[in-house]
């Protein structure tokens, strides 16, 4: 398990078509989230802002409501200026640009998912490791806690936290998703640890008198790093879905727009009945494609790290 081989494996992963496809797609959305705002004059809330002369205050202008995609429109701003703008994905019922909301919503959703994945993975790994490595009573107690967490639906926690806070921010949502998403990671990591714990090299290390921490970080962890990475990716995709669902039922962030809240607004304003498809198809499609991309990354990595799954010629 030397360093070179891991580097080699990463290069191998880059040669894997599935990994390349998934990684490329994900990269595309990340880049899109970063540079997307360059293609629209609208701010994250879908409004057109204009600086008032002689002060640093900005005034918002609404666009015409429910314009279809690729509509050009001349806005008359607060100060009476005429500005020609292009609504790449049209506007919604409140006269806000959908494309701008989508780009900023994508940012929020990716940010929430990243944070939630980090929190969930770290928690799950720690608890799983400790339970699996220590065994005995510690294991029993921790696993009982894991089981309890598995049966408490995350929505209860969300309501509780939402009630304590004056406003729900994306970070809070990430925290809640992370705090409820770890139990299965802990379970999986525990069983991995259990199987690794009794391998010869670990026993050797123990005989050599290495401390538990040294064994965990020096011997067991490196053997699980790829596994942990994959778990993290699954956490990430789970978090995107969970956050979209929470947003959709009205428990989304109150301080920022996210992909799920766009969908929720679309439903609330009868977009389905009135045929404003540009309002609800793109956000869902983006969520779906991101998760697909993550799955492919995961699959590609699994094939690389677990040669049994590798199929000839790929």
């Amino acid at each position, binding site marked *: 398990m030397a360093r070179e081989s891991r580097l080699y494996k990463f290069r191998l992963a880059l040669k894997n078509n599935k990994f390349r496809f998934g990684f490329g797609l994900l990269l595309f959305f990340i880049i899109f989230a970063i540079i997307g705002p360059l293609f629209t004059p609208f701010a994250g809330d879908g409004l057109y802002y204009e600086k008032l002369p002689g002060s640093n205050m900005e005034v918002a202008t609404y666009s015409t409501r429910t314009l279809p995609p690729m509509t050009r429109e001349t806005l008359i701003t607060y100060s009476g200026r005429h500005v020609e703008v292009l609504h790449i994905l049209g506007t919604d019922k409140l006269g806000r640009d959908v494309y701008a909301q989508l780009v900023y919503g994508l940012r929020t959703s990716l940010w929430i998912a990243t944070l939630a994945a980090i929190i969930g993975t770290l928690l799950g790994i720690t608890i799983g490791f400790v339970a699996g490595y220590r065994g005995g009573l510690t294991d029993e107690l921790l696993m009982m806690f894991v089981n309890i967490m598995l049966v408490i639906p995350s929505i209860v926690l969300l309501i509780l936290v939402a009630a304590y806070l*004056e406003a729900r921010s994306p970070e809070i949502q990430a925290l809640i998703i992370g705090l409820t998403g770890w139990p299965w990671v802990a379970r999986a990591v525990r069983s991995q640890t259990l199987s690794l714990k009794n391998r010869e090299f670990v026993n050797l290390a123990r005989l050599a008198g290495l401390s538990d921490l040294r064994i965990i970080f020096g011997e067991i962890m490196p053997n699980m790093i790829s596994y942990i990475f994959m778990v993290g990716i699954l956490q990430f995709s789970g978090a995107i879905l969970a956050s979209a669902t929470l947003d959709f039922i009205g428990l989304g962030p109150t301080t920022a727009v996210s992909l799920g809240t766009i969908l929720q607004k679309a439903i609330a304003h009868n977009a389905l009945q009135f045929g404003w498809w540009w309002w609800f198809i793109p956000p869902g499609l983006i969520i779906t494609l991101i998760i697909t991309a993550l799955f492919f990354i995961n699959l590609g990595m699994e094939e690389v790290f677990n040669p049994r799954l590798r199929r000839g010629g790929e």
Partner: protein
Amino acid sequence: MKRYLALAIAVLLVGSLGGFAFAGAEDFPRSETIYTANSAPPTSANPFQGGNIIGIDGLVFEPLFMLNFMTTELKPWLAEKGEWVDSTTFEVKLRDGIKWQDGEPLTAEDVKFSFEYYEKLGLKKIEGLKEIKVVDDRTVQFRFSGQPNVWVWRSNLYTTLIIPKHVFENLDPEKVKTMTFLGDEQKYLVGSGAYKLKEVIQQQKSILERNEDWWGARYFNKPAAKYIIQLYISSNDQAANAFLKGDLDVATYYLDIAQLKSQNPNIVSWLDRPPYFPPVVPVVLYFNTEKPPMNMPAFRRAIAMAINPEQIVEQGPISDVPDQTPLGPIMENWKKKMDAPKLIEEYGWQYGNLEKAMGILDQLGIKDTDGDGVREYNGRPIELHFVTCAGCSDWIQTGEIIANQLKPLGIKVVIDKGDWTNFFMKKLNSGDFDLALHWAGTFKADPYSVYYSLMYYNNETDKGSANFGNYHNERANELLQKLSATPNEDEQVKYLKELTRIWLEDVPAVPVYTGTVFYEANTQYWTNWPNEKNPYGVPIFWPGFGTWGTALALLGVKPAGTPSPTTTDSGGSTCGPAILVGLALIPLALYRKRRN
């Protein structure tokens, strides 16, 4: 193995279908059925603490008087008339020939029993009511000790449902509190009204069936619809679809009414011009009147002047242009008696007059000294925090427009959003805000209640329920006190005029747009829906608004396509005054609406 699995699944599938309690099938002829809907499922028909079935109040059980919220007038219902015979005695005379649905006559004893039953339940506490005296079968006197609040009493007349003594006297009030009056308990639903509860299909629909033997047919029209079915439609989206397909005749949902009308020309609402929806009362912009510089009436006035409601109506929520008073279009009668336009001209401000507003601020010495476009007060730039709830898109949008309108005045407005209960209402109740919108203070059924809830202030706990800005004016308190004690209309108008003058001079809050309630009706099967020109009923199809006039609307519709006789109303004389007491609990519907 595979075959067994398939079999097991098939059994499960059939079994899950069998999980329903099957009732006998029944058809409701479309031409004889009114379909309405609510965003909460029908789960309780409890007439006392507001079930969620439209019409339990008003159509099944009836009050002494019906309120018509759209005109704020009372219409004698079970009562033929009611009046203050002296300053502490209110006498009610019942109509002749009123019967319960089981055939028993409805008498003064039932009226006395009903008011006492509400008190026993803990749902009403009528201040100062000493005795309810049955004079004869059709006459009952309410005797007060000391001077009663005539407006509060007025509200009791339409919020107290009259229940049959012979059914309820053996029902323990403690038990009644949590009864749903469905299933076996449905037998207690013996009302006097035009409809009976036929059946509730749990959590999906409730079916009211016409009472063919209704006493009221003699005085009012016999209701046209044989059935009134309330569907459970949880989302606006689905309600829009039901209207487009003609599955729904009338309801209160937040829909794009203009779009709906263009797709289904049979859809009507209150007005035949935009905003179509019925404008009811103004939404007002509160100032935290305890915080400088908003403690200065002149400063508040300057802000009021900089606001342009016409722009808000054009760019903001579905609304209409308000006037400067907190009394909405529903109080047109009162405003006429007060000659409100003259008061406004004399004491009020002019909207959208930026120049004059700037002049006032300059005069107050609030100027922009450092040239950054923001005026300073005591050396600090004025930055006002506008609080609202994150789901209240109407209010957020209005806040943004107001922020834009105040910018050229040199005042910066920051919009803070949060949860309804834990952020918005908490801030309003604790005075931790600068500006906020609300209409709880204006959504009232009489002008006394409006002024009381907006302007009364004795101390932090004893104040008007919607006096969020803690506006305090001793003279206003005094006037409210006097107004509460007089059933004499001339005197009432005199006090109301003075209260309006104080409002206009002091600007405790600014009406920024006239809020609408949502109302969609389908004329394909039923016509004569109430509207601006014929406001005989109230277009609020929420549970709990029955005696506020929804019942009047449902009783007044006519079948489409058949020549309809003209209504013979027995002419509603306005009875004594009052205050709104809302037992009607409509939390879900309102909650939803605000979150949209």
